[in-house]
């Protein structure tokens, strides 16, 4: 099996939701450096993420807006926060199995508990130190893109 593919043989589609442009750039630069991403779709807030996942408005076309294989999402987002997005997709049959990873700026026990209640697959906290942040993103890429196996996408 080729690395970075889902079980249908297509390249992985990763939905990346991050409102801070600087943090988005840090993440994307690291992904590029590690050459791990086939297709990353970057959205800016929770509402956009819901519109995408529920195919609303500009995201109507399934060709242009494919169901993601993996979601990487910040927690504190404008309009609709990450936990709400998580709760909403977990409540829908067609979306509830999408592996979802939270990448939060800070550690808050209540948020972590809530996230796992909504069946988050992994909860990561951005380290302050750049080397550690970089290591985390590299490990994330290896694990979720190279090693993890995905169900057939629809």
């Amino acid at each position: 099996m080729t690395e970075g593919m889902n079980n249908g043989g297509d390249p992985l589609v990763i939905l990346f939701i991050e409102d801070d442009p600087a943090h988005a750039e840090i993440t994307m630069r690291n992904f590029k450096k590690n050459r791990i991403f086939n297709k990353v779709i970057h959205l800016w807030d929770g509402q956009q993420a819901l519109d995408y996942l529920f195919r609303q408005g500009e995201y109507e076309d399934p060709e242009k807006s494919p169901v993601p294989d993996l979601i990487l999402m910040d927690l504190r987002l404008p309009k609709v926060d990450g936990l709400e997005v998580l709760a909403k997709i977990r409540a829908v049959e067609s979306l509830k199995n999408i592996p979802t990873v939270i990448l939060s700026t800070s550690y808050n026990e209540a948020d972590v508990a809530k996230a796992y209640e909504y069946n988050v697959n992994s909860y990561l906290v951005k380290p302050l130190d750049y080397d550690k942040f970089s290591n985390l993103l590299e490990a994330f890429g290896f694990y979720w893109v190279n090693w993890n196996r995905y169900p057939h996408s629809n």
Partner: protein
Amino acid sequence: MQSNSRKADQVLALNREIELLRTENESLKNLLRNNEQRLQGIFNDVAIGVLEVDSNERIISMNDRCCQILGFTREELLTKTIKDITWPEDRALSNDLNSRLHFGEFETFNYEKRYIRKDGSPLWVHVTVSAVRNSKHEHIASVGTIEDISSRRLYMDALKESEKNLKTRNEELTRFIYTVSHDLKSPLVTIKSFINFLMEDIQKDDKQSQERDIQYIHAAADRMGKLLDELLELSRIGRKEKPKSKAEMGSIINEAIEMVAGMIKEKNIRVNITGPKVMLYGYTERLIQLYQNLLDNAAKFMDGKPEQVIEAGAFKNEQNNEVVLFVRDNGKGIDPRHHHKIFGLFEKMDNNTEGTGIGLALVKRIVEVHGGSIWFRSEGTGKGTTFYFTLDGSEIIN
């Protein structure tokens, strides 16, 4: 003869005895009357109300204290049943307990309930009810003793209320600390990462990327500075303020308009002050800041239609006589899905607008230190928004 004189002696002795018994009886009667009067006095003057009802819960007797507690006269009470004087919400419980007493499940019970006083107000009491039964053990009456516990209830309610407030405050504080730590950490992550990118780009001699890196570092440092300033500002509200004073709403709004004049002119927005004249009472500087932030917020979320209007005014809420102030705009409105986040600290509804998202958190805090509350209504996107708030001591003056 002898027998005759003996008989006479016997009669005399009998008479003496009768006389003695009569005196004794008289003094016993006196004692009884005395005791009865004392009992009646005690019955009427005790701090506890006593009420007797028949087996159908019709009131048949009571003491003076009972009349005092309930505010009814004796005659009025004698026409009523327990149900008549029981607060509607407590009738089911009262019914249940009394019928179980009636059928002999127990001989006495006590509980806390509300009566209805003559003026219609509820009165909290502690009641102990005992059954009176005849020789066949049939329930013929009940006697209740009634203790007015309204002041204790009042304290309890006040205590509960303040406990609830404390809990809310505590939750707010926890959320506040979390938000602050989160929002201050975020630019630091940016700064540390872009310093590394900058070093890499220096090694690669990539001038263009170097400039970009430096811009990110600058922006993040500026943002941190701004967040810290605003937090300080937020924490100062209600502390070390100049004394509260009266100020007319219109003049406060006009001063606030001055402070946002730039944006209002640039976006060609009309601001109208409408409704009755209102005298506000509070920290004048803060009240200006409150209106400034509401105007700023309204101006920020205008959608560019030809007639852009902000209306500020007041009206009296007829239900509770409170003066309600409002700031209304015909701008973008607020999506109902985002309503719960509006007053949150550093919450931004739109990434593309300026500011850190402290404005409405500041507004809420100012309203709170003036003993008021704030809410808003928006029919949804494109339909404009109205913020309503109250401030302690505001009065309509014409």
